[in-house]
């Protein structure tokens, strides 16, 4: 520790003495500094600029392809007749089901970890495990869903399998954001509640959770917007690209927008590529809208509550 520190200070001294020797060239350094500022700005904007160019292209290619028929037609082998009705209804189903499964479990787990968990080896095991789960590639969750839900429990290639798989996938995100939101509730609020004779659960339910709700929802929406865009795990559990009917129960097979897009992109005909672009516009509208809501919620929440 001391050695590290002294090494650092030696390094620092070195860096500084170099500066001193070159002090005569300081004008060059000022220009260098100024140039880097604009280069840094350029790099920051680069990715966003590329995205904007691509989005613009998308609208040029497919803006006119989106009409009522595109949204309400069933899939078809003829590109011009094909629509995304089953796909967006499937996405909606998945969104609702995943929320129903993941939200209560995620909040409950987050509350346990933040409010009940004592600092011991078990709790650090739980925390490391959640951090690890967050880093598992989404396609591996697909393999879990395929074997555990679709085959072992026997829910098949259904909406339920898809929602369960995605719920497990976003659980770590919800748990982490729930904990972050709970952390923002000051201890004094809990203290005041306990002092009035409230039990731990009464305090959490009546004071802590309501006070952190918008934070929790922000995290939840961000997690769901990720789930909406997920493709790989759903392909692995066997969601199909061509579903000629709209699912009516959780045991029906399904497709979602990203899979429909993947399917159209994979076809060589240009007309399907245009369809893909049109479906992408719809999908992006959904994800951007969800992200927008999350940003708005977070903004309002940070503004409203000043402890």
């Amino acid at each position, binding site marked *: 520790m001391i050695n590290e520190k002294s090494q650092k200070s030696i390094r620092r001294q070195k860096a*500084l003495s170099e500066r001193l020797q070159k002090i005569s060239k300081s004008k060059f350094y000022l220009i260098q500094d100024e140039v880097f500022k604009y280069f*840094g700005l350029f*790099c920051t904007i680069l990715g*966003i600029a590329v995205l904007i160019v691509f989005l613009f292209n998308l609208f040029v290619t497919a803006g006119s392809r989106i009409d009522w028929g595109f949204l309400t037609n069933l899939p078809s082998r003829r590109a011009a007749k094909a629509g995304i009705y089953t796909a967006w209804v499937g996405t909606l189903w998945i969104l609702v089901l995943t929320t129903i499964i993941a939200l209560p479990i995620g909040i409950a787990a987050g509350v*346990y970890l933040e409010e009940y968990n004592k600092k011991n080896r078990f709790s650090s095991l739980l925390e490391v495990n959640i951090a690890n789960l967050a880093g598992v590639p989404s396609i591996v969750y697909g393999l879990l869903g395929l074997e555990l839900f679709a085959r072992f429990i026997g829910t098949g290639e259904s909406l339920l399998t898809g929602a369960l798989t995605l719920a497990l996938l976003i659980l770590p995100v919800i*748990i982490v954001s729930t904990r972050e939101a709970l952390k923002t509730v000051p201890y004094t609020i809990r203290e005041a509640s306990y002092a009035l004779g409230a039990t731990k659960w009464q305090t959490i339910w009546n004071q802590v959770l309501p006070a952190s709700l918008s934070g929790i929802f922000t995290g939840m929406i961000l997690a769901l917007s990720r789930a909406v865009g997920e493709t790989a795990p759903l*392909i692995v559990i066997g969601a199909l690209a061509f579903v000629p009917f709209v699912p009516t129960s959780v045991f029906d097979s399904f497709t979602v927008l990203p899979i429909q897009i*993947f399917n159209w992109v994979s076809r060589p005909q240009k007309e399907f590529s245009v369809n893909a672009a049109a479906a992408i516009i719809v999908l992006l509208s959904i*994800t951007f809208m969800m992200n927008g809501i999350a940003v708005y919620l977070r903004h309002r929440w940070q503004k409203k509550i000043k402890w």
Partner: protein
Amino acid sequence: MKEKIIEKLLLFCALLTIFTTLGIIAVLLIQSFNFFKEVSFFDFVTDTEWTPLFSNKRYGILPLLSGTLLTTLIAVLVAVPIGLIIAIYLSEYAPKKVRSILKPSLEILAAVPTVVYGYFALVYVTPFLQSIFPSLSGFNSLSPGLMMGIMILPLVSSLSEDALYAVPKFLKEGSFALGATRFQTAWKVMVPAAFSGIAVSVILAISRAIGETMIVAIAAGQQPRLTFNPFVPVETATTYIVQVSSGDVPHDSIEYRTIFAVGMSLFVITLILNNISFWLKRKYQATYS
């Protein structure tokens, strides 16, 4: 009494995360075990051909890993330098107002679904690159690699920014006090001091790129090939899983089990990388606290 029941319920929900991990490990282990009953582990890690879907079956994972490695390498070569520059710009140069606009806009890059990036890579980037490199194949690792690099840019830049923030202020002030410019301070003092934190961002970027599926599945092709030529079609480990899953491979066949062996490899590699990053992160946080 009621309190105890609630606590147990909450605990159970937290334990579900442990069960998830155990579930993943069990599923991968069981099916991989079945796979390795028929294919020797030695062949799996040394054979240079991957052809489980052909009549002449060979089970060498190296071609898939080289595809994964190649696309990952390209993505990281894009994301790490640019991400670091962004982090330095945002933390040292950008006025507060500019920063408050740029940082959330950067996050949009991470919010775009990967299947969309796949489309961009295939339909926009590849034809554009072909106009520069006519020898570039329609499926290649260069264009999805570049696209992936842009996708993980926010991850690298925000983690690097965290690392730069963790550097004690006195180092920075010491440098400024001697007349160093922001550029000099950033590169000669801040970046070296934040080295392990920046390493964390690099490792997590690698881990993310390895597990990324849709971009490469759409734009890199489905031809397992042991190569480091970014211009030709390759197949990554993740793409292979997608390829088998979207086809009609019968369950309980050896072809079906291959995806679990491949999934196991992905899981182990990302697990190791993630844990190295956790360890490094704890180390650098301890250094300055």
